[in-house]
């Protein structure tokens, strides 16, 4: 019995308490459970389509790899980049502005509904909250009608298409940006409002007495204090919008403006069968940006959630 590493009376194995050993076994098991699908995808994506058999897809590819050369196959990745390139660019054009806009507008709305007090704000706030509960399915037809028949966005966008880097089909992405911003606004407002309720009223009053206008209070006091919450909102919105397929199908429908999720649906599928290595490479490629966002903003996200 050892009293140095465990509590008195606890049974131990090589100086480690059983409690610890079981904990680590569970953690390792859970790690494997979560990582094996990704590992399987990765392994599959570096197998040459010709030699792909579907047996033991989680094992590293064995000989022969690319027939005759003995090298790992990068062909699926090359194919994924070719097939998704346009969609990735379109998704970035869509997601970055939509995320920033919904976060910024959500923060402003929450400031106006929480920190500043005025008559009727509760009513407006209830409308925002109600927005969270409108199902996507309910707005699909109205959305199509709105962007194709009610708002002449396409015609209004034509002159802009003359600018460098701007294409005519970008009007669909603009419509998608506005739609996602509007749909993301309620949840962003809700998140920011919870944060702003915790800020000291006296601090805002001190700023008022210091001569700051409402806009200045937002810009110089509230905005800098919102940074942890922006990390939360940005990660959330980025993932939501990046992974969205329904609105993209509804508004973009088809064509050059298709985003990455739309392209992903069809890649590697043909009448002759499914090209699994290509599909896996494409899936990993499409998921990469959200992974990067989590890796780079994860610590700020944790801070914002804990705040």
């Amino acid at each position, binding site marked *: 019995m050892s009293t140095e590493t465990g509590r008195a009376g606890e049974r131990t194995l090589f100086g480690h308490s059983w409690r610890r050993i079981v904990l680590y076994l569970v953690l390792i098991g859970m790690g494997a459970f979560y990582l094996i699908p990704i590992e399987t995808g990765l392994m599959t994506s570096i197998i040459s389509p010709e030699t792909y058999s579907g047996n033991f897809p989680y094992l590293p590819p064995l000989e022969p790899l690319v027939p005759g050369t003995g090298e790992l196959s990068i062909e699926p990745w090359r194919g994924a980049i070719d097939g998704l390139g346009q969609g990735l660019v379109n998704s970035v054009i869509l997601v970055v502005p939509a995320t920033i806009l919904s976060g910024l507008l959500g923060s402003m709305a929450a400031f106006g509904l929480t920190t500043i007090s005025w008559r009727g704000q509760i009513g407006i706030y209830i409308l925002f909250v109600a927005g969270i509960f409108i199902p996507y399915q309910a707005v699909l037809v109205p959305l199509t009608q709105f962007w194709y028949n009610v708002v002449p966005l396409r015609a209004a966008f034509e002159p802009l298409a003359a600018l460098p880097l701007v294409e005519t089909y970008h009007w669909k992405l603009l419509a998608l940006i506005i739609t996602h911003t509007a749909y993301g606004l309620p949840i962003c407002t809700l998140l920011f409002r919870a944060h702003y309720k915790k800020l*000291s009223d*006296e*601090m805002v*009053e*001190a*700023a*008022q*007495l*210091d*001569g*700051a*206008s409402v806009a*200045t209070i937002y810009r*110089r*006091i509230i905005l*800098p*204090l919102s940074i942890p919450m922006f990390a939360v909102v940005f990660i959330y919105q980025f993932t939501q919008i990046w992974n969205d397929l329904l609105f993209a199908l509804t508004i973009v429908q088809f064509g050059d403006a298709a985003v990455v999720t739309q392209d992903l649906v069809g890649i590697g599928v043909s009448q002759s069968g499914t090209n699994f290595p290509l599909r896996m490479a494409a899936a990993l490629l499409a998921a990469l940006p959200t992974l990067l966002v989590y890796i780079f903003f994860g610590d700020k996200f944790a801070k914002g959630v804990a705040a």
Partner: protein
Amino acid sequence: MAELTLDDVTKVFTEDDGNEITAVDEVSVDIEDGEFLVLVGPSGCGKSTTLRMIAGLETITTGEIRLAGRRINEKPPAERDIAMVFQSYALYPHMTVQQNMSFGLEESTEMNDDEIESKVADTAELMEIKELLDRKPSDLSGGQQQRVALGRAIVRAPEAFLMDEPLSNLDAKLRATMRTELQRIQDDLDVTTVYVTHDQTEAMTMGDRIAILNDGILQQVGTPLECYHTPNNRFVAGFIGDPSMNFFEMDVDGETLVIDRFEYPLKPAQQEAISGRSDVVFGIRPEDIRIKEPGGLSDNYQFEVTVDVVEPRGDENTIHLTFDRSVDDPVTFTATVSGLRNISAGDEVVATFPPDSIHLFDTDSGVAVHNRTFDSEDATHQVL
């Protein structure tokens, strides 16, 4: 710097269910240029609401507030040229001390960066926080944050300072130090100041004048000694002074006041003051009661009493006395005696209520009908 006038200022809050609550009821005070007025009262008496109306953070239901003779009711806080120190200090947590102090000057004046920097440096020197200028509020102790909050108000050189219980979050020792320092600074700057507190010690020691509020109604405005020695009513008499004044509800019987345990003969002037009343509240401050060893009563103002509890305070002892320890509801009162006197619970002593130190109040309204002998000209002499 300017005089501040509150003219019949009233604040009525309407609750969600339509109930109207009058938080501040027709309060009128003239605060002179450079004066230090302490607004004191128990929690919920409307003192903070009054301060917030002066600041512009609450609307004024009726009445008028004038600063330097100009009506400011409709002006937003930013345009009133008033600085406020909050109980929570309300520093901007993401800014350094330097930025905290510069903020008001940047937003409310046309000064350029160099002027602002030199003003902040001067004020930091005055407040002895020069070495803290690059730190953030979270790196400061409570006392240091307090100094920064004061510095942020001072640097703007406003027409008036408002302070909302600024010392209540400090420990007792630091509070006493800051009390003195605040008085010194206010004296040096000579800025009209309204200081809100629930602590009667702060009110007594800091204010040029104190205004006592209860239930939204102004009870009395006067110098600390006026309020202490000649209270307008029973509330003021009980609120100012620690330990509190002793009160006995007594019946009037000709020339004497009567209660179950004792009788008290009145002087002719006192009889006149209460003529026509059948009952009255008798008040006397603990330090006015004289205690001596037992051994015969030499006049009618002396009573044989028993010591119930002794609270030593070092410089003086607060002793709780009772006329009769054996009954279920003994009439008790407090007296203060020198800390060096050796008195313990259970001792039999003789208490004297000197006739020139007593106060008499109306039983129902609490209005003072007779106050102790007090000549404000002699005030300095009396307290020595």
